[in-house]
């Protein structure tokens, strides 16, 4: 009972945040509502027992990635988005397509909703086991992603640095 209530609360906050993300016209509001979504998702994870995932969700997503977003928004001093009619296709095809797709998926889920319920804290993901999986079974993907991150860092530096800045650092060596 409490479980379902918590689920519904978090879920409601989640959906509200997502909708708000779309409704808001100022990027920073969207960003904050996304943070809210992530926070409540962390709550959902806790309900599912994935405490470690929840914590990392908060630290990485809310604490790092979204901070980056906010940071960029502040840096570029992005204002309200103006309403331009750029793309008819997005409206003509995309939204109907999206509706069709989601309706179909919903139908499938409802049709097969005979899934047995998940108890509270169904699968506790203690850091130790996750570490075992991450550093033992999934070692190769882990390393690959680390390389990916490295590349991403360098790419970000190269992309964002002003040419003259790059020259400057080159001179400095």
């Amino acid at each position: 009972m409490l479980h379902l209530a918590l689920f519904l609360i978090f879920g409601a906050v989640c959906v509200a945040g997502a909708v708000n993300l779309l409704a808001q016209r100022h990027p920073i509001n969207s960003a904050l509502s996304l943070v809210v979504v992530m926070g409540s998702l962390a709550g959902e994870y806790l309900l599912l027992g994935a405490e470690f995932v929840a914590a990392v969700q908060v630290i990485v997503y809310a604490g790092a990635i979204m901070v980056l977003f906010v940071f960029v928004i502040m840096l570029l001093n992005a204002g309200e988005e103006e309403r331009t009619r750029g793309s008819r296709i997005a409206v003509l095809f995309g939204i109907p397509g999206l509706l069709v797709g989601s309706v179909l998926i919903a139908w499938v889920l409802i049709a097969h909703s005979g899934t047995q319920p998940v108890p509270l804290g169904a699968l506790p993901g203690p850091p130790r086991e996750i570490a075992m999986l991450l550093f033992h079974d999934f070692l190769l993907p882990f390393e690959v992603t680390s390389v990916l991150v490295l590349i991403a860092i360098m790419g970000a530096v190269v992309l964002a640095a002003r040419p003259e800045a790059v020259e400057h650092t080159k001179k400095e060596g």
Partner: protein
Amino acid sequence: MVPLSYYLVLSGILFACGVLGFLIKRNIITIFMSIELMLNGVNLSFVAFAAQWHALSGQVFVFFVMVVAAAEAAVGLAIIIAVYRTRETLNVDQVNLLKL
């Protein structure tokens, strides 16, 4: 006790919101956030299925998704900065040099 399908519906809704944002928003940064939203929706389904099948690997995949998302955010935001520097706008409708 919450049926698994609830979680899946929730993640589906989040994903759909992400797609919708991609479709209707003009601001590059917001569109980018929509992507993150989709990723989150997927993550939720990952964790839900992990709980369903008692397989921790589902949660591990969430970490991979997060890492990818982080990398993507770093590069993407850098790109956004570069675009803004050259085009003086964040409106995707005005960043359409790729057309024929």
